[in-house]
């Protein structure tokens, strides 16, 4: 056995090695023959993609299949012809000639009180913000002409990020240029294919796009139901116990909104933070409607939650409603949030926020700080008063969805008044315009995967809405609904006369 030590007995001359082939054992030569045949066979194999069943993506279509698909294709009409779209298209004919602030003037001369668009702290039209924006415009020009990594970073961006971080009491903020893509980029930059996300079922469309882009497993929990969420987390924890190796590489997230735009509810942040620590889950809070509108209670919850943990969880806000020009940002600990500077697709591959808007947002934040919550408190009291009056005066006419102190409320026709359908609500909005009020129906994209909500009118309260404006809103709602109810009652009576055996 010519094994370990260099042996003088065995010759390593090349000729001797060649001779050794002749005295090689048969099994050995057979094995080598098979290997050589294998190599030769290998050279003639064609390359292919494994089929979908084996985990591959399958080969592309054959020419015949392609031709067949092309022949069968029928183009869809450009405009759907859905009657619901007509009312929406008609609204585009309306042309505003003033800024869309607390009131809007249209080209036909009417001035309507704005209860439709979000302007909670009434910063639109604020002179100080406008002046700062114009000064920035003259200094920097309009656009930043590049993403943050390619000459698109300016001092206003860095300053605004610092300001945001300080405002939230966090270590760092990352600024995005488009509100929608903030949460839609932030979620997929952390959650990947084999991760799990627990999302509220009434999340907005932007969050749904983020969830879809993440390719993670999405588990929806009942709206604002922490008991259901805990049950789901418990179930997941049991799965993890059974397969600890998989659990070690699976990241888990909870995604909620601070103030749900589609419902007007506020998320139970305190309980969510407790669940977060108990089950070791990362928390995303989408705060686009709650920045500056919910005030100190929120801030305390957020700061309390963040100080204790060591770098998990982040807040994301795409704030286009509260402080006007700000487009989107994410705040959290440096370790967590910095990841998006390379992985947040909306941050890396989109041009950065126009410096004019960054300066304006910075000014708005300064104003919020200076006012020490004065406008926020006013907003909360106005929303609360409106809520109480809606409940008291319009009890059987309209049903209200939303927290009392939330500036977003959803109104639906009570069943005593009539059928709560989209055309009925749009007719109500059209009538409101005649009465000097700007109301809007809550609109959803067709691909909105969340629970299809009942049609509703979405009210957005402004902190500077006067009592008389609120009064006129309530008067209109009351008279309109009463009129509808009468019509409905009359129709019911007519049908009763025709078919007397129906009660």
């Amino acid at each position, binding site marked *: *056995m*010519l094994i370990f030590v260099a*042996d003088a007995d*065995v010759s390593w001359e090349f000729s001797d090695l060649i001779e050794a082939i002749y005295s090689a054992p048969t099994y050995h030569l057979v094995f*080598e023959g098979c*290997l050589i045949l294998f190599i030769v066979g*290998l050279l003639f194999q064609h390359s292919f993609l494994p089929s979908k069943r084996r985990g*591959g993506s399958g080969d592309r279509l054959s020419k015949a299949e392609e031709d067949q698909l092309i022949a069968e294709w029928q183009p869809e009409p450009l405009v759907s012809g859905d009657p619901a779209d007509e009312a929406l298209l008609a609204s585009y004919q309306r042309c505003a000639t003033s800024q869309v602030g607390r009131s809007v003037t249209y080209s036909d001369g009417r001035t309507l009180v704005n209860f439709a668009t979000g302007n909670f702290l009434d910063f639109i039209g604020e002179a100080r913000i406008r002046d700062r924006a114009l000064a920035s415009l003259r200094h920097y020009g309009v656009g930043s002409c590049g993403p943050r990594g390619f000459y698109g970073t300016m001092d206003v961006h860095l300053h605004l990020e610092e300001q945001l971080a300080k405002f939230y009491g966090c270590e760092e903020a990352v600024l995005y240029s488009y509100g929608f893509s903030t949460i839609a980029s932030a979620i997929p930059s952390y959650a*990947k294919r084999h991760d799990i996300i627990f999302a509220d079922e009434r999340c907005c469309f932007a969050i749904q796009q983020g969830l879809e882009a993440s390719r993670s497993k999405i588990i929806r929990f009942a709206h604002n139901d922490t008991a259901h969420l805990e049950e789901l987390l418990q179930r997941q924890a049991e799965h993890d116990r059974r397969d600890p*190796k998989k659990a070690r590489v699976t990241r888990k997230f909870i995604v909620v909104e601070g103030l749900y735009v589609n419902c007007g509810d506020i998320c139970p942040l305190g309980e969510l933070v407790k669940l977060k620590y108990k089950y070791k889950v990362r928390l995303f809070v989408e705060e686009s409607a709650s920045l500056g509108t919910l005030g100190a209670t929120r801030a305390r919850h957020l700061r309390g939650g963040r100080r204790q943990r060591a770098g998990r969880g982040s807040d994301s806000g795409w704030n286009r409603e509260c402080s006007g020009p700000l487009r989107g940002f994410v705040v959290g600990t440096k370790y967590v949030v910095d990841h998006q500077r390379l992985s947040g697709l909306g941050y890396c591959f989109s041009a950065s926020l126009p410096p004019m808007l960054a300066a304006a947002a910075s000014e708005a934040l300064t104003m919020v700080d200076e006012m020490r919550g004065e406008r926020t408190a006013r907003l909360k009291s106005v929303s609360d008063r409106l809520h109480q009056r809606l409940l008291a005066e319009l009890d059987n006419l309209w049903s209200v969805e939303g927290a009392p102190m939330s500036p977003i409320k959803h109104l639906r026709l009570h069943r005593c008044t009539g059928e709560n359908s989209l055309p009925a609500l749009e007719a109500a909005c059209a009538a409101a315009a005649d009465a000097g009020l700007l109301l809007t129906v809550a609109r959803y994209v067709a691909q909105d995967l969340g629970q299809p909500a009942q049609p509703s009118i979405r009210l957005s309260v402004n902190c500077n809405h006067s009592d008389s404006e609120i009064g006129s809103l309530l008067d209109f709602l009351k008279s309109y609904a009463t009129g509808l109810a009468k019509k409905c009652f009359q129709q019911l009576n007519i049908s009763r006369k025709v078919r007397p055996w129906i009660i």
Partner: protein
Amino acid sequence: LAAMQVGTAHSDPNPNHVYFNSRGIWATYVIFIFITHFIVLSIPFISMALAWTLTCQIHNVITYFWLHWEKGAPFEPLDQGESRTLTHWEQLDDGVQFTANKKFLLVVPIVIFLLTTFYTRYDQIHFLVNALSLVLLAIVPKLPQLYRVRIFGINKW
């Protein structure tokens, strides 16, 4: 190499799919094997047979860990986590079987084995050890039948 861009319109989200098409990679691989072999040959007291067997074993073990054990990528690819559970072999050429690269990587251990059996003068024990490592570590994991297969769930996550 143009295909090595990441994040542009014409790029592959995971450079692991395309880097083995770079110029000179095949030669680099062969040169690494040569260097290993020369280092092993430089050890003074072992026989020629053992040196060749050692080269063969070291090559099979290292390529097994490099291609069939470690999963994912050492950087953050833009594929949204698809390659996190895939070994390097499964990522090469984006899962296409029997490409030129894969045929090359299959043939090299076989050639090393043939040379090793020649230089060990067809000894039985050397043959057993080398053939086992060749078949189990170098050939079987590379077959298309074992694409994305994890036996007994080992190394799945």
